[in-house]
């Protein structure tokens, strides 16, 4: 029984079909990766999953229910969290407030709760802050909690982005290129961190990533997207040696950056990776 089931999802932008009847499954506790050249539709699929983009056709089934009609904030409430390719920090809030927000949201009547502090009103905020501090400790960013995101380097901002998603207590976490801009050594450490995070927070993960080193070291299952279509799927090591996948990476206009590691992966089982 998959946690999340994407059924024949199609998205069109004008005449362009960004996603063409895509079907994929994420099993509970599984680490799924999604690769493909730029413009393959990876981020579009994330937007469909998180409710920012409505599909022209198809269904998103989450825990056996269609969530097509749910707004992004309702999907967050049901346990679908995501990060963004470019970190989207709340720049006028401290890092602590950034991380506290998902656990301390306005509810119905929230205005009155803010205006008239009742006994025990601080409880929810304290709980959310405690979680924020705990998550920050796991990700090693506890020293940034007092700062504003704009004061921090990109690497830290990516971790804050991840931490904020974790603070919403997701079950399914969508990571959109969380490691871009990291060097090989940082990427290796980041892979370890992702696996640790998955175990600590008991997550099902869907990772979009260009870095094959990272994908191969964490993913249990791999989907390859090309021009809005599923090109291949299966065990990561098997899939990347699939000639069709190699050709897609070599053939695309903007595939050069990605082609080298993947192509060498195809020829040489271990050696040629970055």
């Amino acid at each position, binding site marked *: 029984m998959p946690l999340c089931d994407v059924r024949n999802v199609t998205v069109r932008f004008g005449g362009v079909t960004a996603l063409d009847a895509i079907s994929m499954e994420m099993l509970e506790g599984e680490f799924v990766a999604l690769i493909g050249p730029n413009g393959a539709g990876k981020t579009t699929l994330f937007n469909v999953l998180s409710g920012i983009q409505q599909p022209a056709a198809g269904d998103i089934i989450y825990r056996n229910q269609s969530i097509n009609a749910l707004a992004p904030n309702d999907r*967050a409430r049901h346990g679908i969290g995501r990060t963004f390719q470019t970190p*989207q920090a709340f720049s006028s809030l401290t890092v602590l407030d950034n991380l506290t*927000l*998902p656990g301390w949201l306005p509810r119905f009547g929230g205005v009155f709760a803010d*205006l008239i502090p009742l006994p025990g009103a601080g409880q929810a905020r304290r709980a959310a802050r405690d979680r924020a501090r705990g998550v920050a400790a796991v990700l090693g960013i506890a*020293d940034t909690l007092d700062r*504003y995101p704009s004061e921090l380097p990109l690497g830290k901002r990516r971790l804050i982005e991840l931490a904020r998603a974790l603070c919403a207590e997701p079950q399914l976490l969508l990571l959109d290129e969380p490691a871009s801009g990291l060097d090989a050594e940082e990427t290796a450490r980041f892979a370890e961190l992702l696996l640790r995070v998955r175990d600590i927070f008991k997550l099902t993960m869907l990772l979009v990533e260009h870095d094959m080193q990272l994908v191969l070291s964490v993913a249990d299952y791999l989907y390859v997207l090309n021009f809005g279509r599923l090109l291949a799927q299966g065990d990561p090591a098997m899939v990347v040696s699939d000639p069709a996948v190699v050709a897609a990476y070599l053939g695309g206009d903007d595939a050069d950056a990605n082609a080298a590691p993947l192509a060498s992966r195809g020829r040489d089982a271990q050696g040629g990776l970055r």
Partner: protein
Amino acid sequence: MHSATRPARAPVGADLTRRLGRGSAAETAHVGSQTLKWLLRAPLLLALLLPGALGAYQLTVLTLALVYAIALVSLVLLTGFVGQVSLCQASFMGLGAFLCAALMGHYHLSYWIAAPIAIVVVFCSGVLAGLPALRLRGLTLAIVTLSLALLADNFLFQGLDWLNNNGNHWVISRPSVFGASLDHPDALFRVIFIALLLVMLAVVRLREGRTGKSWYAMRDAEIAASTSGVSVVAMKLLGFGLAAAIAAVAGVLYALAIGVVSPEPFNFVASIQLLAIAVIAGVRSLPGALAGALFYIILPQFLLQFPTLAPLTSLILGGGLILQMLFAPQGIGGILDDAQRRLFRRQTAPASAPQDEEGV
């Protein structure tokens, strides 16, 4: 009460003073509440003594300035906190004033019953006026709100007989508070001053609470806020509703202060001027709203003494906008906060030292 000198461990005060001590220049909004506490202490006494020291005319002008400060607070909330533009805030102010006057005139309600009803109705109309903001933003939204201002002026304030007393002005008979008739300028000043303080305190509490944090998140990164669980629809409509309600508070107090309700002060030009003043004053700063209102009301009164200069009000507003863009991007409120940060730096320096407080 002296939060600036509190020990670092004190929960909320320490948080604020620490921010203050670090002085992140971009974040005037957090710092503003410190200014507000500071504003609350000394000037509260001053305000209670002030009526005796000023003549009736000066006091009336100052009272009107306080009314407009409340109207500007509504824009600080909507534009500064929620991040939405409105060119119809004077219309909500007018709707509040006219509804209050009409309820009093038609049904002989007491002011203290008519005014809250008017405020609640304007809250609802503010929520409705916020609906376009769910789809539009920026310039398009500004134009839609401007057209709402024109509609309100032409079809409600000038066109609806029930609302505008068949084209005649409404005259408000001022009530009494604790035996003191509000016909007396001193009592009127104090009531409106207290109303301003209550509105500002309420807005500060919202800002520091979950409502305000969600608004900030939405303003900074709307999509990320929504995927973090913030209901963009609810928070935007709430922002428009509350901003309209605060403008309506200014409206019903305007009716009280001036004693006459007529369409002219609430036309679309007034709405544009309000937004211009809010921007000059610093659209994220509550103390800036007060400074802006004093400037907005007292400047024309001052110019009245020189009849040849009187038509220059708009020109001075425009010039002020240009100067503000060039020299004070955070507006008057930003300048106030800077000054106050320097003033309090010595006291807050020790509080900014402990960095390990957040350690897990």
